[in-house]
Each structure stands twice: as structure tokens, then as C-alpha cells.
């Protein structure tokens, strides 16, 4: 707290709760700085946001960490050969695989990624598209050697981590042109979040998407459910879950170790 006389205050300022007038009331009185001095170092535009693919983070369990290290070594070696891009649920991808029974021995599929599951070498992602008015979902393995190319046609995120509700949505939300041209993003721009609210088919749906356990924000519920039905769905809410300490799992240390391994393998 020892500061020289006349020095400015430190950068993080606790502003007082009530501020009545903005202009100086008396000469020599405290004049608050014109702009907010609190700077969030995480959102600086120049910094690169490193993306750690979720299958690198091992699931919680009593498995020996040696097994995860061996798996990660294999995954990184495969990534040196095949470029696996940054992909999120809601981005549109085109995957080329080797197919024994197709002419030209390769087959391509374009679709929106609705789910990413699995960890380690067996990580998968499901792509959905509508072909000739029939919805088709294909589950691809990220590290399968038959996958020859994964091209991100449109990189974007959606409001939810899982888009399985597209199965009960109107078909226009799952239809994408197979010959779509890739949409490129500017370098350094954050991944755009598509805040689309999807319209659904009439009920009953395959799952009760209005229930709080699915925590879906990307459906326009007002068009399909009354307020009473939404209140009824809140009966299944479990508000104590967010305070459950046993469910807290801090992965920062594991992620730091994984980043070190990735750097080491890049250098070698």
C-alpha cells in the first residue's frame, strides 16, 4: 500500500456501489476515470486461443494414467499424418473415407455435427444430413485409419453441446447442400455462436427435450409448449446438482500436462 504521492490508483478498481453524478462536483474532488479500467486479460484480441480437443481429456476413473499416456501418444502420431481440424457440435463437416464397395473406393459425406462422444482413440462424432428427404446420421471415428480427410465446411458453435433434438425438428434444419463451398473465417476471430432457435415437429418427440436435465437452449419452446407445460417440466429439475461438490472435477492440471505432451511431440 506504500505509493508515492500523486500516483494513480492500481488497475483493478473497486467501484463504489452508488454513483450519483458523473461530472465533478467540486474542484479537486475525486474524478473517476472516463473508461472502465478493469481489463479481462483472457479476451485480448492478439492472444491465440488454443483448442484442446475433448477426447484428449481422460474420463474420471481409477484407470492408470500410463494407459492414457500411451493412447495420447498414438493419437498425436495419427494427427501428424492426418490433419484433424478444430470441430465443434454445430459445425458442418465433409468426411472422406475409404470404402471397399464404392466406385472409386472412397465415399464422402457432408453433415452437421450433432454429438461428440468417447475419449481417447475411440472418439467419435455423428454427422447428420437429409438426403432425398430421408434423414441420415453417420457416426465416424476420429482416429479410424480409413478416414482420409476431414474438412470443416463451416466452423461455428451452437447454443447446446448436443444437437440430438434435430431428429425431432423440421427437416429444413438438418438439410445442407452436399456441394457446399467452404466458408472461411478471418484469422484470429473467435468461433461464431449461432443463436438459432429451432422449430420442432408436433409432439410427441423422441425425448422430452423441455426437461431441465437436457438443458436445451436452442429450441423455440414458446411455439410448441404452453407455460403450464413448461412449469410441469420444471418439476424434474434438480437444483442441488450445481452445488454437488462430488461432481466437481477440475481438469486444469491434467490439461496442462496434456499441453506439455503435445508441445513435446510437436518438437520431436
Amino acid at each position, binding site marked *: 500500500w506504500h505509493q508515492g504521492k500523486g500516483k494513480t490508483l492500481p488497475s483493478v478498481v473497486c467501484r463504489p456501489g452508488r454513483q450519483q453524478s458523473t461530472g465533478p462536483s467540486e474542484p479537486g474532488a475525486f474524478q473517476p476515470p472516463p473508461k472502465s479500467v478493469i481489463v479481462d486479460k483472457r479476451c485480448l484480441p492478439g492472444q491465440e486461443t488454443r483448442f484442446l480437443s475433448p477426447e484428449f481429456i481422460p474420463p474420471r476413473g481409477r484407470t492408470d494414467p500410463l*494407459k492414457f499416456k500411451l493412447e495420447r501418444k498414438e493419437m498425436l502420431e*495419427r494427427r501428424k499424418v492426418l490433419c484433424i481440424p478444430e470441430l465443434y457440435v454445430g459445425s458442418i463437416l465433409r468426411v472422406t473415407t475409404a470404402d471397399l464397395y464404392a466406385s472409386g473406393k472412397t465415399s464422402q459425406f457432408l453433415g452437421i455435427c450433432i454429438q461428440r462422444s468417447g475419449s481417447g482413440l475411440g472418439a467419435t462424432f455423428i454427422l447428420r444430413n437429409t438426403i432425398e428427404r430421408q434423414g441420415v446420421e453417420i457416426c465416424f471415428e476420429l482416429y*479410424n485409419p480409413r478416414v482420409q480427410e476431414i474438412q470443416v465446411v463451416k466452423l461455428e458453435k451452437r447454443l447446446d453441446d448436443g444437437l440430438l433434438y434435430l431428429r425431432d425438428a423440421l427437416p429444413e434444419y438438418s438439410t445442407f447442400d452436399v456441394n457446399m463451398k467452404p466458408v472461411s473465417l478471418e484469422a484470429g476471430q473467435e468461433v461464431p455462436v449461432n443463436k438459432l432457435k429451432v422449430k420442432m415437429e408436433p409432439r410427441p418427440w423422441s425425448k422430452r427435450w423441455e426437461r431441465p436435465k437436457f438443458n436445451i437452449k436452442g429450441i423455440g419452446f414458446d411455439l410448441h409448449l404452453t407455460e403450464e407445460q413448461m412449469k410441469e417440466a420444471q418439476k424434474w429439475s434438480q437444483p442441488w446438482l450445481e452445488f454437488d461438490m462430488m461432481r466437481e472435477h477440475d481438469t486444469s492440471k491434467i490439461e496442462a500436462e496434456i499441453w506439455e505432451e503435445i508441445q513435446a511431440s510437436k518438437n520431436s
Partner: protein
Amino acid sequence: MRGWRLLTQAGAQVLGRSSGSLSANKHLAFFRSLRGKNGTWWDEHLSEENVPFVKQLVSNEDKVQLASKLCPLQDEPWPIQPWEPGSSRVGLIALKLGMMPLWTKDGQKHVVTLLQVQDCHVVKYTSKENHNGKMAALHAGGKTASRFQLGLLPKQKVQIFRVTDNAVIKPGPPLYAAHFRPGQYVDVTGKTIGKGVEGIMKRWGFKGQPATHGQTKTHRRPGAISTGDVARVWPGTKMPGRMGNVARTTYGLKVWRINTKLNIIYVNGSVPGHKNGLVKVRDSKLPAFKDFCKNLPFPTYFPDRDEEELPEDLYDKNVWQSSEPSITFA
């Protein structure tokens, strides 16, 4: 055991009961378990500062002993004999780490279990006559445990492997994962995961009854347990009870890959037991793989004796490695 008889007599005298062995057995629970002859444990008379010092000292000694790959015994090991048809060699004790997918060069996906060999040593030799009259036996020990828990050698699991006379090894040398080679078939024995008391549908695979169409309180029950003519239930009838935690063997599992540096065996399919559980691995006894150990190290793999060093990873010829390019069907 002699010790139990002494205890029962002491118990009977102390409590003044003169009934048979049944009641005396019940009172054994009141007495302290007497592991050694003196009835004390290792840190009973040590002061508080000395306990961590002794622990550290002993663990350092153990590490030094295990780190040296040479035989801890000073005498010469027994002569190595060549392989003959019909001979069987020692197996290993390994730790089940987990499971992983593996792809072959034709694009097929297989699942493999990783088994790590941690400090597996040959512990004891019993000759043919002492063992059972037909074959000699070698005792091999698995993971090293704390010295203060067990009696002589601190091994967590010791298993018996029946070997022919030409495959005997003098007790002492450690066994490595390179004892097995990719492309061979093994049998893996382990204790299955204990499920506790289970019903007949899970335990014996019964079909149960339908969920609807008027079934009253009968959906997972056995139904009939015997016929009417016998007027009793046959002993051994399948009924609910404890399931799991029993030694079971899976036969004929192919070895796809071996990591000689970390001593890990990649074995096809699944293996009985939970993760970090100890299993016994040996060459397959199936008639299809009877004389497979022709080209395998006999009686076992000695790293200091073989001139050529093995590469870090040994693969089966069909396995697709991650450093190879993607598979194409040309």
C-alpha cells in the same frame, strides 16, 4: 494348522467351555491374529521419527534390487535346454491396465486389452515328484508389495505354472513382456469382477417372463425349479446367489503388439477382472496352437543374454500403426 489347535485349546480353557470344536471356532474372533511367532508388528517398538526412516530405507533397498536386471542370487543359473515338441514354458503375471481399439491393415477394428508386466520374478521351483508326479512347477510372483505385510518375498500375487523339465528356470530372474511375441495366442486367467448377490437372469442368463399380458408380480423369476416326479430339488439347481469374484480363464487370445520398454502386452478381446487387477498369462493350451512356442524364446527371454536388442515396439504383421498413412483400397 497346529496354531489353530493351540488357540482353540487356550480358548476353551480360558472360557471354561468343554464343548466341541464348533463353539471354540466361534471364539477365535476374540483373539489377536498371530502372524509371526513373537506376536508383534514391525513398527510396534519403533519411535515415531524412526518409522518413516525405516520405510524409506527398505523401499530404497527394494528399488535397488529390482533395478538391477541381473539375478539376485550369486550362483550360476541352470543351463538353458532347447525346445522339444510337447514342452510348455513358464507364463507371466500381469496387471490389467485397460482397453483400446486397434486397427488392422484391411481396415477392420479390433479391441485389445493392455496387460503390463510389473516386477514379475520366478520365485520357487518344485520338482516333478514334489509337485504332482507328472510335471514340474515354477512359482512366479507378480507385483511387489510392501515388505512388512507378507512373510518371505514381498509379492502381491504368486501363481503356479506347470512346465516341462526342459523349461525350468532357477528362481530369481525377472520375467519380461518380451517372453511373448506378437502373433502368438495366450490364455489369460483372472478373478472376475464380483457382483454380489445376483438374480437368475443376470447370473445364469434365464429369460424371465414377459412384462405385460397379465403377469402378476412375475417378471424376473425362475419359474419352475424341478419336475414333479422327483419330488425334490436336484442339488446344483441354478438359483440366485453370489456371482463373480471367481477365477476364470479366456482361451486363445491373440497377442497383437508388445512394448518392450514399458513391458506391455496388447491382447485381443477382453480379459476377466477389473482394471489394475492381476492376471496370469500363459501360452495357449488349445490344440490348434499346440506347438506354437517353436520360435518363441525358450525357456524365457533373458535381455542380458541375447545379443541383439529388441526394438521398443513389436507389432504383428497385420497391425496398422498410427505413423502409417491412412488405409486406401486401391
